[in-house]
């Protein structure tokens, strides 16, 4: 093989390999960094945490919505499945699960106005392969890695609605089954 062809071939191999390795590693790295930052800020695993009202001064994650009240729970299913119990909300609301690769693997409505609103949404998060016994009406979400993150969004554009959303945190659960 001629010298320029050798260089060109290894250039293409190097470009493609590093490009795709970096692209595929980045979401997991960013999620892991975000999780570490939350933990360093005092957020404990398996505990619902009410985020402060979103302002430029309180934002910790990119593109937060200032109209929403956020609550989050860091999940680790390495020791077994984790159950979440969350009350619904009189306006738009959702409970979502994000896996270690940033994928939104579950989203359930918390809007109490919907005809099939459950009143309280219950889900179980488990590692693929873990045995789960779920009652009727309980959604089961499987993840590929033990670390996951649960996020509640509730429409709360005023301080009063934010306070009402915050009052639901003590009656919500996030912990081992």
């Amino acid at each position, binding site marked *: *093989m001629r010298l320029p062809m050798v260089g060109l071939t290894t*250039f293409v191999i190097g470009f493609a390999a590093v490009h795709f390795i970096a*692209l595929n590693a*980045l*979401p997991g790295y960013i999620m892991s960094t975000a999780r570490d930052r939350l933990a360093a800020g005092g957020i404990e695993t398996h505990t619902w945490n009410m985020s402060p009202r979103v302002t430029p001064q309180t934002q910790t994650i*990119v*593109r937060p919505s*200032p109209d929403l009240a956020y609550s989050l729970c860091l999940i680790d299913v390495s020791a077994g499945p984790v159950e979440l119990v969350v009350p619904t909300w009189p306006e738009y609301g959702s409970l979502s699960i994000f896996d270690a690769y940033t994928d*939104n693997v579950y989203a359930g409505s918390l809007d109490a106005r919907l005809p099939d609103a459950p009143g309280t949404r219950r889900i179980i998060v488990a590692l693929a392969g873990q045995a789960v016994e779920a009652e009727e009406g309980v959604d089961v979400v499987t993840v590929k890695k033990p670390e996951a993150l649960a996020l509640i969004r509730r429409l709360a554009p005023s301080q009063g609605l934010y306070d009402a959303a915050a009052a639901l945190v003590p009656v919500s659960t996030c912990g081992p089954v």
Partner: protein
Amino acid sequence: MKLVSGLVGLLLGAALGLGAAAAAAGMVGSGARLGSAIDVNGWTSDWTIGSEAANPWTRARVARHGLLALTKEEAVYFARNTDDAGDRLSEGCDYRVRGGAMPAQWWSVTLYNSESYLPDNTDNALSYDLTDAATGSDPSNWFFDISPVSSASGNGWVSSRGAGDFDLTLRLYKPKADLIADPERTLQTPSIEKLGCGEAP
């Protein structure tokens, strides 16, 4: 010689591959686009945002600029960083955003700086949403102004103070099935009219 040529090619390729990945993920440059597979009058989106179906470039960009984004069944996100004339949205200019009924249960328009954060100001005017539209006027014919200072007109206002170059994100929660099936025909996109420009701060 072949070994040296191969090594040089490999190292150059690896360096450029890393840089291209960083650029594709929005680690450098503007981060307005979370995905561009869908483009409705300059408002761009991608229905694979948040899902396992996203390609590596969309997935990396969403992780960097839209972490914890929901899948399309729950919410869709459109971003735009230019006005109707095609000029970059900038703190140095004033704009009027005008729109109509949105095909979703609830919607909002929020301003973010080029780093995908809310602009660092204390104006308490970060977004405009369905609640504002319903309160202020007809939710099927609404408008608000974007400016570094509040207008005296009493119209809806979103502050661009401290934003520099910015983009707008249109969130549509619980989007209607028609929007997912045919966004170009279903979404009446908000217009962004430039009202004028002053001295850049």
